[in-house]
């Protein structure tokens, strides 16, 4: 089955990004496809390459980058939400791309299920 995922909150502040990541991992392990993860609202903050969490904590951003690399997951950051919050190409982590809100609607159309994670 083809899944689309929406992440509405930034890393660390809310569990939304963690839950979304663990859902994606489980879906892939079960043989499903994660067609796109769309980062909206403060979710765009998951895409900054400048985070440096404590050594004993998970690295939420690089975990997403790795998922994109290993499983060809399309990580899309909403451009309008990103501009409001200071995410641009110059601080974008690997595996993410910035694009329009149409990519969210398209995910709704093209996938079998769209699951939203937020606050």
């Amino acid at each position, binding site marked *: 089955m083809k899944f689309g995922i929406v992440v*509405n909150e930034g890393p660390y502040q809310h569990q939304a990004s963690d839950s979304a990541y663990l859902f994606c991992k489980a879906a892939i392990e079960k043989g499903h496809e994660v067609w796109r993860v769309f980062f909206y609202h403060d979710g765009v903050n998951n895409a900054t390459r400048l985070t440096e969490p404590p050594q004993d904590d998970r690295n939420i951003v690089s975990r997403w980058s790795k998922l994109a690399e290993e499983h060809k997951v399309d990580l899309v950051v909403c451009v309008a939400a990103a501009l409001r919050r200071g995410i641009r190409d110059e601080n974008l982590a690997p595996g993410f791309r910035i694009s329009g809100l*149409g990519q969210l*609607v398209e995910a*709704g*159309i093209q996938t079998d299920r*769209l699951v*939203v994670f*937020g606050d």
Partner: protein
Amino acid sequence: MSDIKKFLFVNRKPPYGTIYALEALEVVLISAAFDQDVSLAFLDDGVYQLKKGQQTKGIETKNFSPTYRALEGYDVEKLYVEKESLAARGLTEDDLLVDVTVLSSEEMGNLMDQQDVVLSF
């Protein structure tokens, strides 16, 4: 016609305290360009988004409530409001800045069941 899906945007948060209402509206506007079957649902504090008479000058923030009135021009015409949510807030249809269809809780539940994609913010 197999590409047409039923999209429901569920609004449960009040405006201005958080950005969800505003950014939800931005998605709704974009979705209009995709020729899908789009509906909006307002329940809980989300019904406050449609309150007439919003004046945001004092908080130095943009008043985006006129955009709800512009939705019709984008062929987004199905706006549903839960009756119980209005009543709990002392509001009636006359307080709202757009025409809506008022549904009971059960009807709202049925509406949700019928969708292909439900987006909530």
